C-alpha cells in the first residue's frame, strides 16, 4: 500500500549510490500522444530531457552497443534512430506501414518489425537500411520476441490469436501456436526454455515450449475487488536467471509478480493507470512500467517487490528502455 516507505527510500538511495559506482544509465520513454521521448537519468530518476519524434511513437529499443535508440514512429511509417548520448536523430529507416513493435535480432543488426495494418513482419538491416524480407503473418501483428540463440523470432497477431515462429534463416513461418484472445507480447526466458505470451482480452499468459511449439501452462490473474475484464495482461519481463517475472495488467493498474518456476502469482503491485509496457534497469534492480492513462512511469524495486516512485512523463507513455552510458 505504501508507495514510498523508509525501507524503499533507503533501498532507492542505496541503489542510486551503487549505480553511481557502477554504470550510469538513461531511461527513454516513448510518449504516444505527445510525439516525444522523455529521457530520465537512471540515478536521480528525474526527467532530464524531452525531445520531439515522428508521429505516434510506440515501440522502443536499443542497440547492443548502447549507441542508438530505435523507435517505431507508427503514423510516419518509419523507424527512427536516435543517438543515445546526444538525443539527435541519426537517421530514419523503412519499416512498412504502421510499425508498432519490433525486436532486434541477437546479431545486433537485423530488426523485425510488426506492421499492424498490413499483416506483415518487415525485416530490415539497421546499418544499411535494406529491407531483407516481408513475412506474412496473422491479422494485426504486434508482439515480437527473439529466441536467445537467434534461431527464431516470434510474432503475435492480435486478431488471429497466434504466436508465429519465424525462422531467421529462411524468413518463413515454421510454426504457429494458438493462444488466448489478443496476444500482445512474446518474451523468452534467457535460457530459451520457455516463451511467455500475454493475452490482453483472454486475461492470461501462456507458457509455450519453444521446441515442441505447445502450451505447457497458463497463468491467470485474479485481483480481489477488481473486475476481471479490467485485468488485461500486456507487457512481460523475466529476470535473467528466470526466477521472477513481471506482467503488466492494463486497466487493473497492477503489475503482477510471478514466480518464474512455479508460475504462482506472488503479488500485485498498484502502479499507474493502464499499465502497458515494462523494462528493467541494466542491473535488473529496478523495473519501469509505462502507465498510459496517468501519464507517468512507475519505478519498482525488484528485490523488495515494491513501487518506490512514480515520475510524470509525456501524454500516454507507451514503451520504455534503459540504456547504459559510458
Amino acid at each position, binding site marked *: 500500500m505504501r508507495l514510498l516507505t523508509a525501507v524503499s527510500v533507503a533501498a532507492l538511495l542505496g541503489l542510486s549510490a551503487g549505480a553511481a559506482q557502477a554504470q550510469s544509465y538513461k531511461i527513454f520513454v516513448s510518449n504516444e500522444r505527445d510525439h516525444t521521448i522523455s529521457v530520465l537519468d537512471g540515478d536521480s530518476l528525474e526527467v532530464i530531457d524531452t525531445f520531439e519524434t515522428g508521429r505516434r511513437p510506440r515501440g522502443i529499443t536499443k542497440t547492443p552497443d548502447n549507441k542508438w535508440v530505435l523507435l517505431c514512429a507508427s503514423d510516419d511509417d518509419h523507424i527512427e534512430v536516435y543517438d543515445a548520448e546526444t538525443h539527435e536523430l541519426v537517421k530514419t529507416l523503412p519499416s512498412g506501414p504502421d510499425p508498432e513493435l519490433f525486436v532486434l535480432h541477437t546479431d545486433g543488426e537485423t530488426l523485425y518489425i510488426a506492421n499492424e495494418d498490413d499483416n506483415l513482419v518487415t525485416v530490415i538491416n539497421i546499418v544499411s537500411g535494406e529491407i531483407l524480407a516481408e513475412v506474412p503473418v496473422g491479422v494485426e501483428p504486434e508482439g515480437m520476441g527473439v529466441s536467445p540463440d537467434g534461431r527464431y523470432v516470434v510474432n503475435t497477431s492480435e486478431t488471429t490469436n497466434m504466436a508465429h515462429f519465424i525462422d531467421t534463416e529462411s524468413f518463413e513461418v515454421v510454426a504457429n501456436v494458438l493462444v488466448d484472445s489478443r496476444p500482445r507480447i512474446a518474451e523468452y526466458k534467457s535460457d530459451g526454455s520457455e516463451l511467455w505470451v500475454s493475452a490482453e482480452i483472454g486475461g492470461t499468459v501462456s507458457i509455450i515450449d519453444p521446441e515442441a511449439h505447445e502450451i505447457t501452462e497458463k497463468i491467470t490473474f485474479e485481483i480481489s*475487488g477488481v473486475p476481471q475484464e*479490467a485485468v488485461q495482461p500486456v507487457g512481460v519481463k523475466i529476470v535473467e536467471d528466470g526466477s521472477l517475472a513481471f506482467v503488466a495488467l492494463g486497466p487493473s493498474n497492477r503489475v503482477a509478480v510471478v514466480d518464474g518456476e512455479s508460475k504462482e502469482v506472488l503479488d500485485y503491485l498498484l502502479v499507474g*493507470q493502464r499499465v502497458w509496457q515494462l523494462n528493467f534497469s541494466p542491473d535488473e534492480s529496478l523495473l519501469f512500467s509505462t502507465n498510459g492513462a*496517468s501519464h507517468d512511469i512507475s519505478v519498482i524495486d525488484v528485490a523488495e517487490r515494491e513501487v518506490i516512485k512514480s515520475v510524470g512523463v509525456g501524454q500516454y507513455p507507451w514503451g520504455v528502455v534503459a540504456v547504459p552510458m559510458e
Partner: protein
Amino acid sequence: MRIHASAPLAVLLLSVTMLVTPAAAQPAHQDESWPCIQRKVPQLQPAQVWTGPPVEEELRLWRNDREIATLVSQLASRRMPIEEARERIAEFAEAAGAQKQERLTLLFAGLFQRLNNERGRIVRGIERYAENQKALSEAIKNTREELASRQEEEGGAPRRDGSIATPRRDGADATPDDLQDNLRFASDLDEKLYWDTRIYDERHRALTYVCDSPVIIEQRLFALSRAIQQHMD
C-alpha cells in the same frame, strides 16, 4: 426557405461515411452501442485505485463528517489544480494525527464515491448521446431515401434555382401548381437533410472530447488516491 448549394450526392456520401465510422473505430470485443474507442466501464471499483483498508462502511459514513464532506467537494472539483489538492491532502493527514489512517480512509471513500458517481452519470450520458446519434442517422437515411424516391418519381432532381421540374415519365404535363408543390416539398427535405447531417457531424466531431470525460475523472481519482496512500503507513 433557404436553398443550399450542397450536392445531394455529397450529402449522401458524407452521411454514409459517418454512419459507419463509429463501429469501425470500435474494438470488436465491445458493446456495439458504445461509441467510444475506450472500453466501456460503467462503474469503477475501489480496488482499481486503492490498496488500503476496505471501505464498504466508510462509503456510507463519509457524508456525516462535515470536514470530510467539505474537503471531498473541494478536492473533487477540477477547478482545484492537482498540486494544490496534494498539498491539502498532506495538511489533512498531518492534522489527523493518531487518527490518520481512519481519516484518510474516510476521505478516500468520499472521493471515490463522489467521483465514481460523477463518472457514472457521464457514462450514462454518453449512452444517451449514442442513442440520439443512432436515431439521427436513421432519420438522415430515411430523408435521403425519400428525397431519392421523389426525384425518381419526378423524373429528375428538383432544381434549386426555382425553375420547373421535368415532366412525369408517363408523359402527362404537370400543372405549374403541382410542380411548385413538389419543388417546395423536395426543398423542405433537402433543408432537413442538411441540418440533420450538420448536427450529426458536429456531434461526431465532439465525440473524442465526450469520450475523454470519464477518463479525465478517473485520472483525477487515481491521482488523489495515490496522494492519500502516500500518507498512509
